[in-house]
């Protein structure tokens, strides 16, 4: 590997796009550098299910030709991206990380969100590992590039690992209980869960129709916004550009109860430092209490799980042996869960959303800030997360601060804000009002500028 290749896969999309337009970098060079990085990192991190090398190079050559002839599709033009393997790519099977999907025919068409990426000129490199049916946070066999003995988080674990390792510039993920933000936090990258229903789910294998949200994982807040801008269904492209200057006077809510319970000490310290950085940037920090946070998490899971069973109803009846024993038992339990309780959660969701709207309105908040996860990446075989005041099952712990905002449907972003004593990344969550993705990306960009120390890539990858 040359120094040049090393530098290329460490660039952000915005940096690469500038160099492409300056004429000192071509989409083909960029794609070849990413493919080389995949070859070097995959034996350790297993982020990809499949890599379409020839198709990617063909797509990169086409992008170069278009740019050379004066057709510029925007900042993603010629940028290598990866796609979570619950999202259809025409010509490839969508296996969802499950043996039960072995032998499914290739997708006939691209998912809407992939179509959007291609329209923006992106070079689709391959499909990334997901936790089985996007219903978990460990994403085997993918591993964390910061320490391959640890999990990359999930369910978009392959996407998070690939962006951190330099084997993609951006990757699509899906987020039903935190599945974009959790791997973003654990891999030290940015993950944006847009407002519910703002990005199309057409061609995406469902986990929970009422909660599933598609979004990007990237190496910077600016990049997350660029990808979001390309894939969202509403509004004019590039109508809003980031400037990272919206912090002065912004009122940021810090919900001390629930979101600061049971934290690893290094996570707590990193978040306090991040809050101090926002204060130094001119933000007004408001301590708030959202009494319905725990109920928001509970309602999300009570909605999600029966919907998961409904998604798999036919397979569970016709060929249940296709599921592993654990997943089969879970699906059976969710299938007989009372409809009354499911509907009760759907009705509680209405009240929960009223309560969070009231909190923002009462305090005139621009955003909330919380840790993304209470802990850094656990060992791959760990069943629990340890805190000074106890322990918690891995899935419950990693989704504790993220699921509430799937229930409310707000946009939420995870951004790196520090490292623990073992050198593992820590994520901070910034949660905005509905449709205010640009605002939270701006806040994140301002934070990145003032805390350049947190933008790092793992050794031995890029």
């Amino acid at each position, binding site marked *: 590997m040359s120094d040049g290749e090393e530098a290329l896969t460490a660039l952000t999309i915005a940096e690469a796009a500038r160099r492409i337009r300056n004429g000192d970098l071509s989409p083909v060079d960029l794609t070849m550098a990413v493919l080389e990085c995949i070859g070097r990192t995959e034996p350790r991190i297993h982020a990809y299910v499949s890599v379409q090398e020839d198709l990617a190079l063909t797509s990169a050559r086409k992008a170069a030709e278009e740019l050379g002839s004066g057709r510029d599709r925007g900042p993603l033009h010629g940028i290598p991206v990866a796609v979570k393997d619950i999202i259809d790519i025409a010509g490839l099977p969508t296996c969802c990380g499950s043996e039960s999907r072995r032998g499914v025919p290739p997708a006939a068409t691209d998912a809407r969100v992939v179509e959007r990426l291609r329209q923006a000129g992106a070079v689709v490199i391959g499909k990334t590992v997901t936790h089985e049916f996007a219903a978990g946070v460990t994403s085997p066999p993918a591993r964390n590039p910061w320490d391959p003995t640890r999990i990359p988080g999930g369910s978009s674990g392959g996407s998070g690992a690939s962006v951190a390792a330099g084997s993609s510039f951006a990757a699509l993920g899906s987020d039903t209980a935190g599945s974009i933000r959790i791997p973003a936090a654990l891999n030290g990258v940015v993950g944006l869960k847009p407002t519910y229903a703002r990005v199309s789910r057409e061609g995406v294998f469902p986990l929970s129709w009422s909660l599933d949200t598609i979004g990007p994982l990237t190496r910077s807040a600016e990049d997350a916004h660029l990808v979001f801008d390309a894939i969202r269904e509403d509004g004019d492209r590039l109508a809003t550009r980031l400037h990272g200057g919206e912090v002065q006077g912004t009122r940021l809510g810090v919900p001390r109860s629930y979101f600061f319970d049971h934290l690893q000490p290094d996570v707590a310290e990193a978040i306090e430092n991040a809050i101090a950085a926002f204060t130094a940037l001119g933000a007004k920090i408001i301590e708030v209490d959202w009494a319905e946070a725990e109920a928001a998490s509970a309602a999300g899971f009570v909605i999600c799980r029966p919907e998961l069973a409904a998604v798999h109803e036919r397979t569970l009846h016709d060929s249940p042996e296709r599921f592993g024993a654990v997943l089969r038992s879970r699906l059976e339990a*969710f299938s*007989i869960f009372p409809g009354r309780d499911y509907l009760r959660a759907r009705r*509680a*969701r*209405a009240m929960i959303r009223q309560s969070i*709207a009231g909190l923002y309105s009462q305090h005139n908040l621009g955003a909330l800030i919380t840790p993304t996860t209470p802990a850094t990446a656990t060992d791959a075989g760990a069943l629990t997360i340890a805190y000074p005041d106890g322990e918690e099952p891995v899935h419950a712990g990693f989704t504790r601060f993220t699921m509430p905002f799937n229930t409310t449907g707000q946009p939420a972003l995870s951004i790196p804000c520090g490292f623990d004593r073992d050198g593992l990344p820590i994520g901070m969550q910034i949660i905005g009002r*509905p449709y205010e993705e640009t605002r939270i990306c701006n806040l994140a960009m301002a934070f990145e500028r003032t805390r350049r120390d947190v933008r790092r890539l793992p050794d031995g990858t890029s």
Partner: protein
Amino acid sequence: MTDSAPHQPPSLEAVRAMGSAAGLDIDEDRLPAVQGVLAELLDLAATLNHFDLDGIEPDPGDPRLGWEERW
């Protein structure tokens, strides 16, 4: 109306009967696992019992349906 009654863990017999009614063939050796998962989810659902939901319709989750004005 506020329903504050806690859920009782379903018995193995109840789980078997519910599975059968749903057309599922739940093996005897998997019944305890199914029972445990179901009990856990029922407990979670019970934490929502403090909400007074009179007159509240199920939320479709779509922010386009008159959501913005509440903020």
